[in-house]
């Protein structure tokens, strides 16, 4: 079975030597906290390590669904107006 729809997955090592450290690092990279250095580390990890590859894509998928499915709470119609009104009254 082709696991991730990408070639070369057979070239990746199947065990990550330091899962805890690697996954935290990947999360920091996904959070945009590692800058340019992050991009290089990421490429290296994704090319060479299957657990890192999978963890990265899982984390990315979770971020995407959170962003698309948990931010649409409809704001009550009159909220903005009532805030403006309360501020007018407080002046």
């Amino acid at each position, binding site marked *: 079975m082709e696991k991730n729809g990408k070639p070369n997955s057979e070239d990746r090592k199947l065990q990550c030597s330091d899962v805890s450290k690697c996954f935290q690092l990947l999360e920091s990279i996904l*959070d*945009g906290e590692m800058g340019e250095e992050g991009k290089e580390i990421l490429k290296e990890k994704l090319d060479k390590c299957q657990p890192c590859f999978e963890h990265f894509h899982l984390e990315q998928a979770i971020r995407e669904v*959170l962003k698309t499915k*948990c931010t649409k709470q409809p704001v009550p119609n009159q909220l903005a107006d009532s805030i403006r009104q309360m501020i007018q009254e407080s002046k």
Partner: protein
Amino acid sequence: MSESQRRKYTQEEKNRIFDGEFMPHIDSMYNFAYRLTFDEDDAKDLVQDTYLKAYRFINSFEQGTNAKAWLFRILKNSFINEYRKKSKQPAKVDYQEVETYYNSDDVDFQGTTDLRAESVKDMLGDEISNALNALAVDFRTVIILADLEGFTYEEMAKILDIPIGTVRSRLHRARNLLKDKLRGYAQSMGYKTDEEE
């Protein structure tokens, strides 16, 4: 606060800042408030209070700094000080859970590998939302700030009054807890996990 600071902005400037920099964040603010309180009326009150405070203390807002982070900080503090006590859905923190996760380094990844990216993408909004809502408030908050609102670790540190290192570790643990919840859904809904392969 010095006298000069207190009188920093003219009435016109205040209105411009309020309308131009504060009000555009009302959707994010309401979403955050709703996910903290789980109640539409409480969320409305919390957002309203936050904006009133923002206006009252507008002179301590520095133009050019991140208005959204400043507002989120006020909202978070209002929630802790006022709403947490009276919230209809008690925002109970499972301290056992918190302590376990804060104090251990190696509970991290057991059993997280069986959740697949494809399963997560197939999940419904309700499942994702319920999983997020099921987290203790401290963990839920960091996920909201980072993943829903896109705050940096530094901004989150300021909003939550905690060191950046704590932001990083709390976020990491929150994500592991969220994955636990999502894995539960994946399995109960018959989504594909590695165990079935």
